[in-house]
């Protein structure tokens, strides 16, 4: 994953547990530096170790750390400097979700080793969509729940989200999103 992800994780851990907590997380994850280059690719194992160490440090289940990370990612990227770019993704949650694949495609021009996920949106009704999440990486479904929560808050929308784990109904993660 790219360093930007790790910087967002740092921001989350510092917000929740302070700078000292991040120092501990990096030590436990056995990473050489507490800072990451945003546009440099890192081995996925680094990312997984950071998540596991953050869960340990913050005394939270790994899934909860991933959920909080997904939620935090929305505000982090906007504050980090991509706020204006994000505004182009859509004026509401639906249009934004519909543009995620295109956005990742363009990110690939800058991040040549990006291995982005794919989001397929199926419109079930005016208030109900199913989001199909395909990823080359395992276990990141809870992060998508956080992303959806973060997006809903960003656009001021009320939603319920149900996560159907990979393998329950299909070979990928599915999320039922109901707009209230």
């Amino acid at each position, binding site marked *: 994953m790219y360093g930007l992800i790790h910087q967002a994780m740092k921001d989350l851990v510092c917000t929740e547990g302070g700078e000292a907590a991040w120092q501990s997380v990096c030590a436990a994850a056995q990473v050489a530096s507490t800072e990451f280059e945003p546009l440099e690719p890192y081995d996925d194992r680094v990312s997984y170790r950071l998540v596991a160490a953050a869960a340990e440090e913050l005394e939270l289940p790994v899934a909860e750390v991933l959920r909080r990370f997904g939620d935090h990612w929305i505000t982090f990227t906007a504050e980090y*400097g991509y706020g204006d*770019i994000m505004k182009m993704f859509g*004026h509401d949650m639906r249009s934004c979700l519909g543009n995620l694949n295109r956005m990742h495609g363009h990110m690939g021009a800058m991040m040549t080793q990006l291995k982005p996920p794919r989001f397929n949106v199926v419109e079930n009704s005016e208030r109900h969509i199913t989001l199909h999440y395909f990823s080359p990486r395992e276990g990141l479904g809870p992060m998508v729940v956080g992303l959806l929560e973060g997006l809903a808050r960003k656009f001021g929308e009320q939603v319920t989200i149900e996560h159907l784990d990979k393998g329950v109904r299909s070979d990928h993660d599915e999320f039922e999103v109901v707009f209230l």
Partner: protein
Amino acid sequence: MRTVLDQHALNALHPFSFVADRSGSVIAVGRSLSKISPVVRSTVRFADVFLIEQPTLGITGQNPSDLLGELIVLSPRAGCGPKLRGQVALLDETEGIFLFALTPILTDASQVSAVGLEFADFPVGDPVFDFLLFIQAQRIGRTRLEVANRKLQWEHTVSKLLHDLTLRTYDVDDAEHAYAVVVSAVCEALKWNIGHVFVSSAGNQPVLRSTATWYLSDPLRYARFRELTDAIQFARGEGLPGRAWERESVVWVDDIRQDLRFPRRAGLPEGAAPIAGVAVPVIAEGELVAVLEFFTERPPHDKENLARFFDLLGLQLAGVISRQRIVKREREQLAALVSASKMAALGEIAAGVAHEINNPVSSISLTSQLMSTLAKTGALDAPAVETNTARIKACVQRITTIVSELRDFSRDSSHDPFTSVSLKKIVDETLDLCGARFGSKGVKLEVGTFPAEWQIECRPSQISQVLLNLLNNAYDAVVSRDTRWVRLEGREVADAFEIAVTDSGPGIEEDVVEKIMVPFFTTKPPGMGTGLGLSISSNIVTDHGGELHLDRNACNTRFAVVLPKSSHKHESNEAEEDRELAP
């Protein structure tokens, strides 16, 4: 081959483009163009809606055919949308249909959102997004670099300031002086207007009371602020300093006129008061000792870094106060040890002193008996009275001298001023106290020459104590030996005098040498020595800017005291006093 570009294809491939006939009238509009030019629609002439910015020279007309093969730039005549760039292509030669294939000129993502454009308004895969992402990433990188640079500069400033304050407060003996140094240094470095100190009063219900320590960049301008501050006391939790006390951390006030928790806001003159302030608690050894306040007329823009600095400042000042307290306690303990050692030394010489006093007392007794006998026989004539009373007076004078020297020796002299005194006088007085002891046990005391003009600046009683300790140690070392002598001699060495005490002993064993200056270390039998003599003597000599050492090259046991003629310590004390007296 005739080509057709229908509305669907126009929307999908060229959403910012339009189609016009040979006269320049618009006949079809791409779906996203209206976001840039709200007035563009079919039937209008494109030149009425757009200004042709490029090309401007060498163009024969404003019909589409005039622009074929050119790079064109159009700017909307209405609205504030971005310019469009592209080319004109002939779609149908027979019908005279032209495509104005355009794309908006965007150099910043904020331009896109400003006109309400979204991802979906662009053709799929439009490289403009790649470009915008690159631009934004570059901007973010530059911003991060600038932030890091500013942080580095700030940290450099702060560490330099803290380092400077460490140096300037290290040797400061009293807290008030340290506060004054810190308050003015911080205000000057940060260009803040006011710095001030509250200290905690003692008692069951302590309060913070204002001190005379102020920094005012403009004393006249801030006179009322000072007056209001000096007139108020704060309990724990009250006002800005009281809250810093309660929270035991830095507390800010962003606008003192608006903050209801800032009681001094009432009564401040318009426009002549600071805007923002901060209170920094100083907690030394777990106890609040002071709260420093700083105020500025310019709202601080980097509160996060400033807060970290003020946190460090409070900690550093607390360290200074703690160190001052420790030094004071150590001095008190040392003074107690010096006193104990002195009493021990007095105990050792008591018999000698008694003998020294007993001699004149016996002489007085004998003389008075003689005078009585002479009186009974009628032989006590005037010359005899004169002779005998003179003898008695001399004996009384001798006793008075010894008692006076004993009193001088035994009193606390640690706060005595440094005075210029003859080294010979110190030596003589010391020998008065201990000389008899040596004689009584047959220890030969050889005393070298100490010229009367050898003057040193010192605390005489303390130097006497050092000599007495060395002489007593020498006496103890040789008193039970066959060869018993002790030599006291002095010599001038550049800007110092060396006073050496050598005894006939065999020297000190190598494994003992390293420990002899350690407090409570003694080689004497239990009850014979406190083990403090040498360590205290060493402290006294060091305090005089000199050195006490064992001469390891000497055949016998030889301790040498090197004392500067003019003590540096003495000079720095005087400088300190001068500074305190300065206005």
